[in-house]
């Protein structure tokens, strides 16, 4: 079965890397990838995660006060 992914788009790579670090600390499967072509963003990288982890990802971003632009399904 194919995995269902979403991505978090950030304003800066520092924020993206911070989000990756926070997610990995609680053992979430995440990966920094180049921003998909159809999602315009200035920051070159975004954080990919499994759809089912969305509430956890949102909580991490909120608790860590990580600024982000949006979350998209890909």
């Amino acid at each position, binding site marked *: 079965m194919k995995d269902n992914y979403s991505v978090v788009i950030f304003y800066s790579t520092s924020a993206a890397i*911070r989000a990756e670090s926070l997610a990995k600390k609680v053992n979430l499967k995440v990966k920094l990838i180049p921003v998909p072509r159809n999602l315009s963003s200035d920051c070159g990288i975004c954080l990919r995660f499994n759809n089912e982890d969305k509430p956890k990802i949102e909580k991490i971003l909120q608790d860590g006060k990580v600024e982000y632009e949006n979350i998209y399904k890909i």
Partner: protein
Amino acid sequence: MIYLDNAATSYPKPKEVGQAMMYFLEKVGASPGRSGHRLSIESGRILYQTRENLAELFNVDDPLRIIFTLNVTEAINLALKGLLRPGDQVITSSMEHNSVMRPLRELEKREVEVKVVPCSPQGVLYPVDIERAIKKNTKLIVLNHGSNVIGSLLPITVVGEIAKRHDILLLVDTAQTAGCYPLDIRKDNIDLLAFTGHKALYGPPGTGGLVIGERVDTKELIPLKVGGTGSHSEFEEQPGFLPDRYESGTPNTVGLAGLNAGISFIFKEGISKIHQYELSLSQKLIAGLKEIPGVIVYGEEQVKDQVAVISFNIKDQLPSEVGLRLDEEYDIMCRVGLHCSPATHKTIGTFPRGTVRFSMSWFNTLEEVDQAIMAIRDIAKSA
């Protein structure tokens, strides 16, 4: 060779520091925050790990509130010039380095009111004197944590409480304490913490930064420089978020990789252990020097706590001549003169002559301290 000039820059560095820098140059290399490829991300991760390590060291919640600069001087300039406006008052002590005094004297010409609170000739600052100097237009208090001349500690925690109570900010210059003395931005009530990477944090020169506490409104803190950040590239205005607001241009990634390894080394050894060890070196050195007839050691008579920076003079010998003999005849490296801190030397009564300064690190030994004491005994006798 005995190196006793660690207050200028630490030497040697832990071997891991050079290894981390070499690894970066050979295996990573790329510019962080600019491109989306693997190497750029890895470079960004190294920067972030360095911020995380610093955040742990200073007890900062959000590592992105740590801004990298060239050194502590740049960090202090950013804080002072970014915050102070004509009509504001700023309070400081008479024990400050020129990294604080010179920006303040420049700001004074732009109608910032500068109040220098005197310390005692032993280097003691009474917090009540700071509180008395506070006025309606006071915006900031700036203090060094550890003196770069006599190693004494200023009561930043108590002054920080005063600052909070009066709703003003405290900027602390930790050039001599970050890495060798426990620091906690919350417990010590620090709003802005300026640090350098190349002293007790064991990083290479060209690294340093400013920690921006939660009480600081970043809209009020103007960047020292603006430019490319790799973010918000569609706009010609500087982005407002951290750290990008204050970090423009390609960073010193190779240096920061080294700094990261330096901080990891401190965690491995333990900062309290490092401090206690350096304190034992200082106590032995001070006691040994004081036994030598004609030697004056500056600072308080009974010191309970300090960093490993000690200033002294031998009778009427010139510090420069003592320094030359230490280097040529005894293979001991130290720093003599005014140590970029005329204010401190005026306070302790050694201006314009200056002092001989010995400053130590984790890598100095009790045997080296003994040899330094013997050398001074020799020089004092032969004069």
